[in-house]
């Protein structure tokens, strides 16, 4: 009663309380919205605009689709940047998901020191990529820890893993599968905890062992989680930059072995100073990633309805 009376009074007092609320609302979101429009939404259009010009640092002649044509015929882009990125994605995604899921299933059980294990497995995901790349460079150096251990096991590998053309990308794949598995573990933990326990009890009554329970019960029930994790990992992998930049340098060395699409974009912008061309690479990457996201949305929608 008292609330209703007070509200009515207030409404009369201000003429229109709803208008005031709306204005305050717009006021509160003004800065964030202006920020998102200026630095996120607008750059999409501006990037496309730039991609249609011969644009180094300053705007040059309008060239229409020339940058796109050039990109279509750019053999370094396709044979190294795109190829490496796809190979990287094709390997790192399944490995990190398998690793992350295994960790999640194990630390989801009633364990002693469970919090400690979760923390230990998650920590590499939090540490600086630069520091981890530095440590990896050291451990994978020609006389580094890994080669020392392998030597004791009877396998003699004498080159630095990141310096050799055939091992540089695989080494980065291994490194990133390790550092991302913790994040994936957390994603799966959230999904695992959404599974009701009576499902497991039913499986146990049927006499199913842990292995069978996992494949027949847990794994199918994680379906929405699988989609989500797969898409987040794929999008992340397609944008790989840090490790290539840190380990191979901006040139994606040795001999383009660690060149990725994003590193190529960075190179075109800041080494070749071809902003128009770099923007073109950005647009193509965006369209590709957007398509992946869209496919995920469609699959997700179906998973939820069916």
């Amino acid at each position: 009663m008292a609330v209703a009376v007070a509200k009515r009074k207030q409404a009369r007092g201000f003429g229109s309380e709803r208008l005031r609320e709306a204005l305050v609302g717009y006021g509160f979101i003004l800065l964030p919205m202006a920020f998102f429009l200026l630095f996120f939404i607008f750059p999409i259009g501006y990037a496309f605009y730039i991609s249609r010009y011969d644009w180094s640092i300053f705007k040059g002649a309008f060239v229409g689709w020339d940058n796109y044509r050039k990109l279509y015929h750019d053999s370094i882009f396709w044979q190294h940047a795109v190829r490496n990125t796809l190979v990287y994605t094709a390997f790192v995604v399944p490995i990190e998901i398998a690793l992350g899921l295994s960790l999640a299933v194990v630390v989801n059980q009633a364990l002693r020191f469970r919090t400690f294990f979760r923390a230990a497995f998650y920590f590499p995901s939090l540490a600086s990529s630069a520091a981890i790349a530095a440590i990896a460079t050291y451990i994978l150096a020609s006389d580094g820890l890994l080669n020392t251990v392998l030597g004791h096991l009877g396998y003699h590998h004498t080159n630095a893993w990141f310096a050799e053309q055939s091992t540089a990308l695989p080494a980065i794949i291994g490194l990133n599968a390790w550092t991302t598995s913790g994040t994936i573990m957390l994603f799966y933990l959230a999904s695992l905890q959404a599974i009701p326990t009576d499902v497991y009890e039913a499986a146990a009554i049927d006499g199913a062992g842990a292995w069978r329970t996992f494949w027949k019960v847990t794994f199918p029930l994680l379906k929405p989680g699988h989609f989500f994790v797969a898409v987040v990992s794929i999008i992340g992998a397609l944008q790989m930059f840090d490790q290539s930049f840190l380990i191979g340098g901006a040139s994606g060395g040795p001999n383009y072995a660690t060149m990725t699409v994003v590193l190529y974009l960075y190179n075109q912008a800041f080494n070749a100073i071809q902003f128009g061309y770099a923007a073109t690479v950005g647009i193509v990457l965006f369209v590709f990633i957007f398509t992946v996201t869209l496919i995920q949305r469609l699959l997700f929608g179906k998973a939820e309805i069916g």
Partner: protein
Amino acid sequence: MAERARPPVLATQELAVEGEAAAGTTGAAGIPGRERADRVRTVIVYLILFGVAVLFAIPFLWSVSTSFRTLQDTAAGFSVLPRHWTTVGYHDVFHQYSFGRYTLNSFIIAGAITVSNLFLASLGGYAFARLKFPGREVLFLLVLGTLMIPDQLRLVPIYEMLVNWIPSWVGHLGWHNASFVNRNGVILIQLVLAANLFLMRQYFLTIPRDLEEAAKLDNAGYFKTYRKVMLPLAGPALAAVTILTFQGMWNGLFWPVVLLQDQSQYTIPIGIAQFIQKYTTLWPQLMAASVIAILPIVLLFVLFQRYFVAGVAASGVKG
């Protein structure tokens, strides 16, 4: 950058809680002969877990161990601990390779972005959660949509804007000859992150409305309600925003590499990137720099682990 995209967070979710283990392993205790098998299995599980934990820890321990070595020691074959303990590596990175400066720069950038995110994300989150205004849902979808825009697409346009437009705009406001291809730019383009705004809104939605009604009766304005009623109740969400933003910006490489050109503004990750390229074999120094990069995050993690490990409800927002 994107490779370690940070998990979308719902501050309300608490994964680090002890005790509520989902089952899946117990079950068959009553069946004869199972008990011993179960015990053996338990031992094996623990062995594997500790083994994996040690494997995960070795790179970090090895870098700490190396950071206290002399250069000769690193070349003298394997030993778990340094043969001669020394802090020369740390001394060098601070005095010879400017890592003191880089550390300060990293703190400035991560700190400024964190503070501005706390304010703008909570204010915007409050408006989207509680205030009614036309177009609210559409605008919120727009905010979420920005999560799908990759940083790389924004690289060229944002660089152009920071070079040409923003300085002339702020010039009109009386800030002449401002430059944004530096620390200012790194901070400016990350003033508020959609993931943080989303997190704050979700948290505010869980707070009961009664408290605000009381504030309304007192005729408190909306800003006062936000500041005096809502913010004090949003502690866990604010903590999550603080920690995740600071961690992300402290580790950030892409935008600093693009925008920081003056060495006096370099952050630790750029310092390390440069060091890897230039002084490949100065291992004690490089490992000391890595320890400096990782240590603040270790401290944050140990102190506030539940906010890190908290969350990650697979909200499907990112992507």
